């Protein structure tokens, strides 16, 4: 008995020791993602609506939509207003004024009257004299989707969200937390949003009626704007006093509008839709061309449409390509050919000359005489281009670092005429 108990003693001691120790120990595993906390800054509606005016020219910081009217180029400064550039000499464009329009992203001009969005409103401005513009009409609340920013709704009492205070933080979660999405965290206590640092750059802004990122489309006396879930129609027959008409639903997420003749070509995340606007206020669905989910600016030249699809964007795309479509039969557009690209953004066409922006991959000058055999004549690589307007052998280009103009008379040897740089602040 003594021998047995002696032999058992080490085992017993170790067992007791093990039991005590095991109850005290825990593991830790956590994921940390560098993030930013966005706390909204509100501005009253009164303050926003009273801020529209002409100002002296200023630096370009965040170029957006591009619009050409007469001798002037109107270049959107994202959410701030519009730079007015005298382009009498494309080799030496001159900024002459800045039209302050809080919340502006898009514009079109008819008979010297500019129709521009200002957060949730549509404003009509007489811009005959860019130094002394004046507001002729304001339609309030016609763009209700603009009251949401980053998923946070504006507070009617405080006004509209016009910016965010940004603070660095680190989002942390436990490993294997199935409730963690890693992308977005809303905190109701201070109405803020925390987002991981997935991008240091903002997505390119919608650009130009003649640019393929247009979200405003003007056809004769009717203005079409991309709205949430459809198209908002305005009559501009009385140029200085636009009038809100109906909002027609489109069962797709619309990205861009391109009017051509009496048709509207809508670029959506899942395809191109064609509407007949013979009755301007009641567009009728005509035809469609489906594609993989992507952002897809579209331009049309005669019976050929050019659609660029880009992967990895906020549209959720997986492919980078140029689709060339035959739209002679508008009810049944057909795919002619697919051209693989690197990272296509905006596209422009002038006759048989095609221009495709490829973001960091540069700018392509292409001969589209034969849509089945489009040839890239020249690629300029030292430019991060995202939209273009071709106009009488002058190509206006919006890029990350500024606004460029090229003479494309010779597609193989485009000549840089001028650049207005972007000032980073």
């Amino acid at each position, binding site marked *: 008995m003594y021998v047995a108990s002696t032999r058992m003693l080490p085992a017993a001691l*170790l067992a007791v020791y093990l039991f005590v120790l095991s109850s005290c120990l825990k593991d830790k595993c956590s994921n940390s993602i560098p993030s930013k906390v966005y706390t909204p800054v509100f501005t009253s509606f009164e303050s926003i609506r009273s801020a529209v005016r002409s100002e002296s020219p200023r630096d370009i910081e965040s170029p957006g939509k591009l619009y050409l009217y007469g001798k002037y180029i109107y270049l959107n400064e994202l959410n701030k207003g519009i730079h007015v550039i005298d382009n009498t000499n494309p080799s030496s464009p001159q900024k002459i004024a800045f039209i302050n329009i809080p919340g502006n992203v898009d514009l079109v001009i008819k008979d010297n009257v500019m129709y521009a969005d200002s957060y949730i409103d549509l404003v009509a401005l007489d811009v005959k004299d860019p130094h002394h513009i004046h507001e002729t009409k304001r339609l309030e609340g016609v763009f209700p989707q603009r009251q949401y920013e980053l998923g946070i709704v504006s507070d009617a009492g405080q006004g509209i969200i016009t910016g965010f205070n940004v603070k660095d933080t680190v989002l942390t979660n436990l490993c294997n937390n199935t409730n963690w999405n890693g992308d977005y965290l809303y905190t109701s206590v201070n109405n803020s949003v925390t987002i991981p640092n997935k991008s240091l750059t903002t997505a390119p802004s919608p650009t130009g009626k003649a640019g393929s990122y247009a979200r405003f489309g003007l056809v004769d006396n009717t203005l079409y704007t991309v709205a949430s879930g459809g198209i908002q129609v305005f009559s501009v027959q009385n140029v200085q006093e636009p009038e809100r008409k109906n909002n027609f639903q489109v069962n797709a997420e619309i990205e861009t509008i391109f009017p051509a003749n009496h048709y509207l070509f809508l670029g959506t995340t899942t395809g191109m839709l064609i509407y007949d606007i013979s009755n301007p206020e009641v567009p009728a669905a005509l035809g469609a061309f489906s594609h993989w989910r992507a952002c897809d600016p579209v331009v049309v030249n005669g019976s050929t449409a050019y659609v660029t699809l880009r*992967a*990895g964007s906020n549209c959720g795309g997986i492919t980078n390509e140029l689709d060339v479509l035959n739209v002679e039969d508008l009810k049944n557009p057909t795919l002619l050919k697919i051209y693989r690209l690197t990272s296509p953004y905006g596209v422009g066409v002038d006759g048989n000359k095609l221009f495709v922006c490829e973001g960091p991959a540069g700018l392509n000058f292409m001969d589209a005489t034969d849509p089945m055999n489009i040839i890239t004549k020249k690629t300029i690589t030292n430019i991060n281009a995202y939209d273009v307007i071709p106009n009488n052998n002058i190509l206006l280009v919006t890029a990350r670092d500024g606004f460029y103009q090229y003479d494309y008379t010779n597609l193989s040897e485009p000549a840089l005429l001028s650049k207005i740089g972007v000032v980073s602040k």
Partner: protein
Amino acid sequence: MKYILLLGAALLTMQGLTAQRKLDVLYFKNGSVIRGHIFLNKEGVVKIENRVKDTLVFSSSEMDSIKQEQVYPKITSNGFYNIDEGGLQISDRKGSVWRCIVGYRFAYQYQVGVGIGLDDYQARSVPVFGDFRYDFSKAERTFFSYAGGGMAFPWLTRKQWGAQNTKEPDKNIAGAYVHAGVGYKFRWRYNSSLHISAGYSHAAFKTKNELIDWTTRQPLGIFSTTDYSFNRVTVMMGLTL
């Protein structure tokens, strides 16, 4: 609870495998002493095999007494050693661990060495560490204590990093590795022994994944980090040569 029972079973097994040896000792009336193993003691005749395998036959009348004495393994005071051990790690999860240690023993009871292992837990890692051991006695069976520390280098399996991210980590950052505990040793020949031990082990390390700009698909130069910190009970069995 089952691991505690397994520990007890392993101990008892080791005790059986390394049963203490004894020698028969013949004390003669003329003062001689012979040691060996008696294989016959009957009818006044004693036959014994000595340690050089000779068979000797004596009459009981010549002897003063017959006794047994314990045989202790011959331990050298200094020398190199190698320990190979493996076992279980238990905390919020379970895993296995394997360690190989080489070092030098001095003053019979002190052992200092370096080791490398494979720590296969929630996240696999390779510990590289220094190790110190102290035997409480020079006896054939003795308690000992051990402690060590070094670095744990992450080496995750696809399944392990796939649980946190969609791609393999871009950076693996080693962290601290510490272990300590007590055990029981069974020497069986010279400096060789079997042992069983229980203690604590800690491993901490990080992995980093570079964030990709979701619009341009270009790396942003900033990283998400997964921090691992494990604190476990470790039960080991091993062999010293």
